[in-house]
């Protein structure tokens, strides 16, 4: 059975977005033979209060993402964003905050925070899943 991988990228070549700052996420689909192709670019921009839709990541880092004090770092906004990617087996961003990571883990979605080219990352991750699935 195939699966989907969510990638945080602004240029379609490199993984260069943090989860918090990504307004769109690129989704790749992997078929039964472990070949991947670009599926879509999904809009994940969650409007959450007026003071938060601009540069949410910056705001996060200054006020502390784990504080659950609402705003952009609030658990509600995060879980909504995570929900939008709940059909994926794993997500790849340069950085994923602690709250978001927990939310993904709850849904059994693996999180990879790494800063390399998309193709290289997908190759390695797919090879890994191939082994995990016991298909060679």
């Amino acid at each position: 059975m195939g699966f989907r991988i969510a990638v945080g990228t602004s240029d379609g070549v490199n993984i260069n977005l943090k989860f918090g700052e990504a307004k769109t996420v690129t989704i790749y689909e992997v078929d039964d033979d472990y070949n991947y192709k670009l599926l879509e670019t999904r809009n994940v921009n969650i409007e959450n209060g007026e003071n938060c839709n601009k540069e949410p990541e910056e705001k996060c880092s200054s006020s502390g993402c784990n504080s659950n004090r609402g705003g952009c770092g609030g658990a509600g906004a995060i879980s909504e964003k995570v929900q939008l990617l709940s059909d994926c087996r794993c997500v790849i961003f340069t950085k994923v905050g602690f709250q978001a990571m927990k939310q993904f883990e709850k849904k059994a979605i693996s999180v990879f925070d790494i800063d390399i080219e998309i193709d290289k990352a997908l190759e390695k991750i797919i090879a890994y899943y191939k082994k995990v699935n016991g298909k060679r």
Partner: protein
Amino acid sequence: MAKLLDKQRYKCALGAMQSVQAIERALPVLHSGPGCAQKLSDTNGSSGYFSPNIFPCTSINEKDVVFGGVKKLHSTIDNALKVVDADLYVVLTGCIPEIVGDDTGEVVSEFADSDKPVIYAPTAGFKGNNYKGHEQVVDAIIDQYLKKSDEKEKGLVNIWADVPYQDLFWLGNIRELEKLVASLGLTPNTIFGYKRGIKNIDKITKAEFNLLVSPWVGLGSMKKMEKKFNIPFLHYKTLPIGATETSKFLREVGKFAGVDNEKIESVIKENEDYYYYLIERYADLFLENRVINKQFTVVADAQYALGITKFLVNDLGLIPAKQFVVDDTPSKYREDIKKEFENLNFNIKAEASFETDGYKIHEEIKNHDYHGYPLVLGGYYEKEVTESLKGNFINISWPVQDKVVLDSHYAGYSGGIRLIEDIYTVAVQRFN
């Protein structure tokens, strides 16, 4: 089909972090998943300057499995060197990085120029248990830290014994072995325990010979040192417990070191006189209580199974039932060890079984006719089965749960006396 092992008595090779911990001011740096150290550490005397809770660890996760964990390892070592003040940093690898193929040796070699020595030992669980891991740590010190020395110190003897922490009596035992060797006029050198550490490691290559007191653990390291540093070794297979074996031990070590025979015999006489004085005073106790335990069984690693069997037969005159060696002894050593079990006084032979499965051991204990109440010396796992047979139980091997051991020991003349005290304390409690 997967096999289940009931009541295992050892840990994975990464358990060798306890061997590193036993070296004063040596710090294990773990390249492993989070939780490995927590699971492997015993609470028996493992706190101190470094405790398992503060061992630097890469805590690798799924991401490192996919993309490799060498970067994380590099930063972990780098920061350990900055933050933790130790004399020796020993990187230990767990299963995950070795399966994934992280080149730990390569990363560690990048720290060759650091002020403090950084070495690494491959201790993935699939390579064996912590007895094997212990050897890997000693081998790592030999291969990566020690340099050949032309200078020899006269009378200097390196003493190697069984695995620290796995053997709860390790500290007391090795100190007692030191005392025995010193009584022959030799200078003992050990690396484990209080006030030993790196300065004693530095002396290893200056020794005249290595003395290994263990049925098999560490034999590989001894051969390695013989080859690499030209240090001969004496392999004394039995942990000397009580007068018979300890006197034999002193004679053999003395002969190997070229100690004057008169000197050896005078040391033995002095020790034996006191030993038998103590035994004599309690002769009636031993006689009266003999009837309650005609036969005994030891369930322990090779060193205790062999050492205690010899002691109980040769010194106390008890009859061995089946003995169980539970440390998963490599098959190449088994024949030799079996022969040792058959080499007892009064032409008595003990049958040794290399069995790691607790269920099978317990079934055999239950089905054996001990001609009365059994005496079982083993791990805590044997307590229940012994009680169900109304036998006498003493907890001497891992896991130890009903005993607190700080520096007491079973090795040597005094160790034999300790063991007699422990056995007969249990015996008299029965009646009083």
